Each structure stands twice: as C-alpha cells, then as structure tokens.
C-alpha cells in the first residue's frame, strides 16, 4: 500500500481482533474438568473498525469497559497481532515494530509503569536516553522542559516506590515523552488521580499536543478529560464504532432536548406542569422539565407567565448522559 499523500498519521481499515479464551468452571471440579477438556470461547474484541487520524490531531476514544479501546491502542503500538484488517501508523506496519517506528511513538498506560520501582526516576530516564538514542544536549533540554511543566523537580531523585500515584503518573509521562514522540497513545492517563492531579495531566497533554504537533489518541472513562481535551471523539462499544466525529456535533445530534430547572415559590399541581413538557423530577420547590430544543424559549415564557416561579435556568443535557444514550444504541432520528 502506498503512503497516502495527505498527512494521515494513523490509518485503520477493517480491523478485527479476536481472542481465544478458555473458561474455567466453578469450584474445584470445574477447575479440574477445564484442565481435561478446556472450554474454548472466542471473544471478538474488535469487529471491522475503520478510522484515520491526522497528524497533530487529538482524538478521544471512549466506551465502556471491554469495548475494545485498549485493544485498539495495543494493536496500533505493535503489541497485539491483528486478526484481520489493515493498520498503518506513520507509514509503518505497527506489528513489525521497526526501530524507526518505535522511536516515534509512545504508549502510556495509567495502570502500567515503566519506571524502575526500586530506583529514583532519573535512572529510568537515563536508560531511556540510551534506548532512544537521544543526544545528551537534547535530552537535557527535553528533561528540563518536562520537569518544569509537570512540576516534578523535587521528586526526581526519590525512589519511585516511595512516591504517590499522582507523582508517579507525572514521572511516567516524563519517561514516555523524553524522546518527543510524534504519536502518543494514552490509556486512561488520569485513572486513580485526584482532581488537581487530573487537571495537571490534562493541561500537560493539551500543551504537548499543541507545542509538538503530535497526534494524541486518548482513552478515558473520565468525561472531563474528553470535554477538556478533544474536539473529535470516537465512541466504541462491543468492538464496533458507534460514532466518529466532533464532540459538538454529537451533542447537537443527540441533545434534542434541554432541561428547564425552576424553583417554585408556591406548590402547584404536577399535572399542570406536564402540559409544558416532560417533568423529569419534581421535588418541591425544585422542578426539572425536559422540553424540545426549539421550543425552549416558548416553554420558559409560559412557565414564567402561568406559574409562581422564583428562579429559572435552562441547561444542556450533560455529555455523560448523551454518551450513555449513544451506548444504549439510540439512533439519531
């Protein structure tokens, strides 16, 4: 296959991956019988997915547990052998794991560490310098940059095992980025971090993407990660892509309703409220009414005219709940 003329960093076409898993029965006898006659089962982790990512693009990859997000990242970074389909990253076939390819990518997994547990992080950095063949001067500049942005100056020489999760995660990022990868695969980079640490990591990813024009592919359960960072998202479930496009469009397509939140100054009959729109919650004095997007203004003015309203706000449906609906398989009408 020829390299595409446009600046595609990642091309995935009709990619599938299945695993053979042997199931163990319950209890002792189940365990024994599975030794004699293993109960083989095929799990379809990815079914015929296709997408492509441009250079310098930041794409969020979301889906419930076991949807196939991590599997995709692992295939793209050359860890897993695809069952079928075509993948090309920076013009390379990831599986062949060419030196030149590996020098340009980085995979960060929130739950796997590459830092040497018993040694200070700086030792691991030095090792990476040799592995990625980073010239001394470049290494020092990069390290200085990263250390500054991620604020890890004072923990560089502490044994990694003594650090907190948040500190370790930031050092993991330093280790993963010393060689300035053109492509960055991030798997749950904020998992287990507190809100402050999450924000630090997010800001940093955003900066890195902008500054180095690196393509970033990020999976997360954390909606804030996606809302903050990505313009484009790919929603995946049960190994299939449900949506691929801008986050804003997804909201436009799926958020056909807005919520009017009102505080009543006097109790009223719920039935009357239901003439305005669908009452989602009524808990005097608070009431949430869901109304069609285009009728929002009208509904609000009707409420204000006909009911004793103390306060009123109009809100968009939260992105979490939109995505939940995408997962449930609701289609745009």
């Amino acid at each position, binding site marked *: 296959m020829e390299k595409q003329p446009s600046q595609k960093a990642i091309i995935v076409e009709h990619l599938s991956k299945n695993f053979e898993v042997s199931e163990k029965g319950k209890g002792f006898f189940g365990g024994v019988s599975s030794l004699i006659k293993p109960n083989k089962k095929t799990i379809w982790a990815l079914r015929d997915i296709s997408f492509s990512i441009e250079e310098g693009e930041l794409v969020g990859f979301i889906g419930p547990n076991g949807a196939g997000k991590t599997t995709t990242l692992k295939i793209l970074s050359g*860890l897993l*052998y695809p069952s079928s389909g075509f993948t090309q990253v920076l013009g390379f076939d990831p599986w062949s794991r060419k030196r030149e390819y590996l020098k340009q990518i980085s995979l960060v997994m929130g739950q796997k560490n590459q830092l040497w547990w018993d040694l200070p992080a700086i030792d691991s950095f030095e090792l990476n310098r040799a592995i990625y063949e980073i010239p001394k001067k470049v290494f020092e500049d990069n390290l200085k940059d990263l250390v500054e942005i991620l604020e890890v100056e004072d923990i560089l020489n502490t044994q990694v095992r003594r650090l907190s999760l948040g500190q370790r995660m930031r050092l993991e990022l330093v280790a993963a980025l010393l060689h300035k990868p053109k492509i960055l695969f991030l798997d749950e980079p904020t998992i287990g971090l507190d809100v402050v640490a999450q924000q630090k990591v997010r800001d940093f990813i955003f900066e890195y993407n902008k500054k180095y024009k690196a393509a970033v592919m990020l999976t997360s359960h954390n909606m804030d990660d996606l809302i903050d960072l990505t313009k484009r998202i790919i929603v995946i479930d049960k190994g299939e892509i449900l949506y691929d496009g801008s986050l804003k469009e997804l909201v436009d397509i799926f958020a056909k309703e807005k919520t009017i939140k009102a505080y009543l100054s006097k109790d009223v009959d719920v039935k009357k409220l239901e003439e305005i729109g669908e009452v989602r919650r009524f808990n005097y004095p608070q009431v949430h009414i869901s109304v069609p997007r285009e009728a929002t203004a009208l509904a609000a003015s009707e409420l204000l005219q006909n009911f004793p309203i103390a306060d009123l706000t109009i809100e968009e449906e939260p992105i979490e709940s939109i995505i939940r609906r995408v997962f449930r398989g609701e289609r745009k009408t």
Partner: protein
Amino acid sequence: MRKFLKRKFNRYLAVFTISFKQEFAYRLNFIMWRVRNVLQIFVTFFLWNAIFYTQDRVVFGYDRSKILTYVFGLIFIRAIVLSSRSIDVAGDISRGDLNNYLVKPINYFLYWLTRDISSKFLNVIFAVGEAFLLFIILRPPFFLQTNIIQLVTFLCALIFAILIYFILLFMVNSIPFWAPELGWGGHFLVSVVIVEFLSGAMFPIDVLPLVFQKILYLTPFPYLIFFPIEIYLGKIQGLMLVKGLTISLFWIIALWFLMKKIWDKGLKAYQAYGR
C-alpha cells in the same frame, strides 16, 4: 557501521548500569543468597572430603585434590552460569509488563542477556571473595591448571555454557504466552530438577554408568557445568574436547533457532494482559 555498533553498545551499557544499581536495592536478599551458596559448598566439600579421607585414594579417576578442585570449581561456574535473572521473563509475560519493552526500540532478548551479564558480574566478584575465604579456612589441596590450551578452551566452554543456559531458560520462560499460570513450574523443572542433576552441579557426571553418560553427552546439560570444569582439570583433552565444544556449539545454534520460533509464535498469541 562503527557508529551504529557504538550506539548499540551504549544502549546495552545503560541497561547494564541500571541493572547493577537495581541489584544493590535488595542488599539483604543478595547477602542471604550468598550465604546459601557458601553453605552448599561446605556440605559438598565435607561429603567428598570424607569419601577421600585416605590420602591416595582414587575414585572414578578423581584423587583428593582433583575432587576438591571440582567442588571449588563449582562455586565459580555456578555463580557464572546458573545465576540467571531471566526468571522474570515469565513474570513479564504473564503480568503483561512485556508491553513496556515491546513498545521501545530495544531487543528484549539482548536486554535480558545484558541484565544477566550484569548480575553475573556482581556474582563473580563475590564468588572470588568467598572462594578465597573458604580456601583459607579449609586449606584444600588445589589443582592449578597451567596448560594454556586447556585454560583458553575452558573459557570458551564457559561462554558456551552461559549462552546455553540463558537460551534454555528464555525458552522455558515463554510458556506463559500460552499458559500464564505455568511460568514458575517450567522454570523449576529446568533450573532445579534437570540442570542440578544432569549438569554435574550435584556430582561429577562420570560417576554415572557409561551408557547413561554417553546419552547425557548428547544433551545440552553436561556442557553447563561438568564439561567446563573437566576441561580445567585436564580430564577432557584433544578429540574429546573438540567434540564436546562442537556439540555445545550445535546446541547453542539449535536452541537459538527454536527459541526464536517459539517467540515469534508466542508474540502472536500474546494478549498483552493488564490494561
């Protein structure tokens, strides 16, 4: 080309350095392990010393000084050949930590070989110290080999032994690609049962029946420990020596190809466990 080799060397030198530092992170563990080694040697020493109590007794072609040299030779060869760190390979695979290495431009096999050499280096330093101490305490009659050919071929056999054992373990440690729970069992089978008994680490192999010896010489195991020591002792010379070196070289190549095949298959079956 030279530049390429130099960069490659630098890469593995860095692995060597960090590996060396890592060994020192577990000082107590290390010391306990050395103590175990010394005790093992004491037991073997007194056993053979008792058998050869009568000064000029010769059993299976060993006199007192040669059997005691054999025992002391064991200290070194064990420290050099059987001190492999690659048990961690099985763990890397079953825990999915192999991911960390696969996504980096580094050869996993050479990575572990380097870590192995680094660990051997440390062991040799300590083994020299221990041997010196034991020598002073026990004052055994010691056989010094002076023939330069025997010494050079001894070194050669030693390097072969290191490679055979390393590749063998690397192969066994790839079992978790298919059966993640079996990593330790396979290692135990090879390193403890087969190697200890068949390599000459427990007793010189030439005390065994001749038929058994002949079969054993076709397997890679006696070349791990017995063969190098016997070269040092001068008990293996000439044609026997050439034949032995050839067979061990054959095993290195054969095992290497087998290991490569297993890894090619294993990586395809690899499920990169752990998120």
